[in-house]
C-alpha cells in the first residue's frame, strides 16, 4: 500500500539480516563506500595509464621539442637517456607514478631545452592550480544554490509562464560553447558598456582575489552554461516527484502545499539533485579549460592548452592527471553523498 510518506524499495525482510551465531556481515553502507572508493581508485589508475600512453605515443616528442630539427642520432640518444626515454614504457610509467605519489611531476622538456635553472613541473603548476581553484570555487559556490533554486521553482511551476521564462533562455544559453558566450559577454560588458576588462590577466605570484573585477566575466560564463543545463534536469526530477502517488495522497490529506513541496517534493527529488549538481561541478573541470583561454586567465586550463601547443608532454601529463583526479573525486563524492542523504537508497545497495 502506498502511504503519504511512502518510500519505495524492498520490504524490510529483504534486508541482509545478520544470522544468529554467524559473525554479523559488514554494514552495507560501509561495503558500498569501500567498493566505490576501490572502483574510483582503479578508474584513476586506468586513466593514468591511458594518459601516459597517449602522451608517449610518439616517443620522439619530448626530444624533438628540446633539440629541434638539429638533433643528430647521437644527441637524440643522449637526450633520451637523460630523460629516461630509452627505458621500456612500463618502467617509465612506474617511475612517473612513484614520482607522482611523492609530488614530483617530472621535468618540462621545453624548460630543459631552454636550459632554464628549474625545469621541475611541480613548481610551475602551483600558481595555475591555485588560480583555477579560486575561479572554479567561486563558480561552484554560486552555482549550487542558483541551480537548485531555479530548478525547483520551474519544476513546481511546470508549463506556467514563469517556467517558460526561465527554461527557454536556459535551453538556448546552455547549448552554446563557452567561448561564444564569453565573447558575447566581452562585447556587452567591455566594448559596449566599458564596465569590465576583456581579459583576466594575473601577474605571476599575485592572487586574482586582489582584483576581483577580473573574475566576474569568467565566473558568469561558467554559470550561464552550467546553470542552464542543471536547471533542466532538476526541473524534470521535480516534475517526476510531484506526479507520484504520495504527493497526491499528501495533498488529499490536506497537508499544506508548502509542506507538500518542501517536506515531500524536494526531499524526494534530492538524489536527482545531488547527481545534477555533481555533473555541474564535473562540467566546471572541463569548462575552465575553454573559459580560462577566453579570458587569458592563468589557470590550469591555459597551462594545459599551452603545453599541448608546445608538445610539452610531461606538462600535458601533469595537468591532465590533476583534472582527471578532480573529475573522479567529484563523481565519487556525489555517489557517497547520495547514499548518506537519501536513506531509501541504502536498501538497494547490496
Amino acid at each position, binding site marked *: 500500500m502506498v502511504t503519504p510518506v511512502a518510500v519505495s524499495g524492498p520490504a524490510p525482510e529483504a534486508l541482509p539480516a545478520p544470522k544468529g551465531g554467524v559473525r554479523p556481515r559488514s554494514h552495507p553502507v560501509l561495503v558500498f563506500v569501500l567498493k566505490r572508493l576501490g572502483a574510483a581508485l582503479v578508474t584513476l589508475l586506468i586513466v593514468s595509464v591511458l594518459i601516459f600512453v597517449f*602522451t608517449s605515443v610518439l616517443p620522439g616528442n619530448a626530444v624533438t621539442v628540446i633539440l629541434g630539427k638539429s638533433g643528430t642520432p647521437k644527441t637524440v640518444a643522449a637526450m633520451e637517456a637523460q630523460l629516461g626515454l630509452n627505458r621500456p614504457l612500463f618502467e617509465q610509467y612506474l617511475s612517473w607514478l612513484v614520482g607522482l605519489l611523492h609530488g614530483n611531476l617530472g621535468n618540462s622538456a621545453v624548460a630543459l631545452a631552454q636550459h632554464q635553472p628549474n625545469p621541475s613541473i611541480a613548481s610551475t603548476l602551483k600558481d595555475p592550480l591555485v588560480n583555477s581553484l579560486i575561479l572554479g570555487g567561486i563558480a561552484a559556490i554560486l552555482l549550487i544554490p542558483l541551480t537548485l533554486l531555479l530548478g525547483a521553482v520551474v519544476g513546481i511551476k511546470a508549463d506556467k509562464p514563469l517556467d517558460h521564462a526561465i527554461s527557454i533562455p536556459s535551453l538556448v544559453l546552455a547549448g552554446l560553447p563557452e567561448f561564444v558566450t564569453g565573447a558575447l559577454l566581452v562585447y556587452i560588458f567591455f*566594448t559596449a558598456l566599458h564596465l569590465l576588462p576583456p581579459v583576466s590577466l594575473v601577474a605571476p605570484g599575485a592572487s586574482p582575489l586582489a582584483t576581483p573585477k577580473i573574475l566576474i566575466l569568467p565566473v558568469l560564463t561558467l554559470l550561464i552554461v552550467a546553470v542552464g543545463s542543471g536547471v533542466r534536469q532538476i526541473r524534470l526530477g521535480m516534475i517526476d516527484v510531484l506526479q507520484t502517488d504520495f504527493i497526491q495522497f499528501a495533498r488529499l490529506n490536506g497537508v499544506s502545499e508548502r509542506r507538500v513541496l518542501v517536506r515531500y517534493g524536494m526531499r524526494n527529488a534530492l538524489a536527482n539533485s545531488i547527481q545534477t549538481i555533481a555533473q555541474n561541478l564535473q562540467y566546471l573541470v572541463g569548462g575552465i579549460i575553454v573559459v580560462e583561454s577566453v579570458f587569458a586567465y592563468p589557470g590550469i586550463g591555459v597551462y594545459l592548452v599551452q603545453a599541448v601547443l608546445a608538445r610539452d608532454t610531461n606538462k*600535458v601529463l601533469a595537468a591532465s592527471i590533476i583534472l582527471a583526479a578532480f573529475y573522479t573525486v567529484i563523481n565519487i563524492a556525489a555517489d557517497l553523498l547520495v547514499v548518506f542523504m537519501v536513506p531509501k537508497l541504502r536498501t538497494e545497495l547490496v
Partner: protein
Amino acid sequence: MSALASVTRGPRSVLSGVLRTNGGRVGLVLLVVTVFIALFGGFFAPHSPTETVGIPGAAPGPGHLLGLDFIGRDVLSRVLYAGRSTLILAGLATVLTYAIGVTIGLVAGFSRSKVDPLLMRSVDILLSVPALLVILLFVTGFGSGSFVLVVAVALVLLPGVARIVRSATLEVSTRGYVEAAVARGEPSRSLLTREVLPNITGVITADLGLRFSWGIILIASVNFLGVGIQPPTPDLGLMVSENRVIIGSNSMAVIAPALVLALLIIGVNLVSDAYVRQLDRSKD
C-alpha cells in the same frame, strides 16, 4: 521505455511533426539558413578569405559590410567560408559515433555474456575524464589533423549512444517477435539487423540532434583553443580567437562568427527538441 513503441514513419511525417511546434519552425529556419551559409556561403563571398584587403581591424564600412579582421582580411568573406570545416567535421564525427556506438550497444545488449560488461566498462572509461581533455590528449599524441579530431570527438560522444542502444536492445530482445526469430534459428547478425535494429530507431534518433550539436561545440572549441584547424584557414572558432585583440576597433570580427555558430547550434537544438516531442506524441 518511451520511444520504443513508436514505429518508424516516413521522413515527411517527421518533418510535419517538427513543423507543428513554434520552436521547431524557428529551429528549422535557423538550421537551413546557417547550414546553407556554412556549405555554400563561399560562393557569395566578395573577397578571397585569405587575401589582405586593407587596414587591420578596420570598422565596417562601404565595401566591407563586417569590416576587416586582425590582419586586414574581409570579415564577411571569411565568415561565409568559416562554417564549412566545423560543420563537416562535426557531421563526420556524428556519423562515426553512431556507427561505432550502435554496434557496441547492439552487441553488448544482445550478447548475454561477459562481452557485455567488458564492452560497457571500457566505454565508461571514456566518461571518467572531461570530454575536452580526451580530445586534447589525442591531439598531443597524434597531432591536430582533421582525421584525429573526428575520431577523438566520436570517441567522446559514443558512450552515450552505446548505453542507450544497449538498454533498448536488452528490452527488445525479450519481445515475442525476436524470440520467434531466435526459435527459427536465424543467425545473430540478421537478428540484430532485421529484428532488433528496426525496432529501436526511435531511441537511436532521439538523441541524434543533441550529439550533433555537442560535436559542433567540441570541434569549434578545439579550433578556438588553437589546437585544431590551423590558420590561415577560415574557421568560426578560430576567427573568434584570432580577432579578440581587435574587439575594440572592429567587434564584428568576433561577434559575426560567434553569432553564426550560436544560431547553428540553437537551430540544431530546437529541431532536435521538436523531433523528440513528436516521438513522445506518436507513442501516446
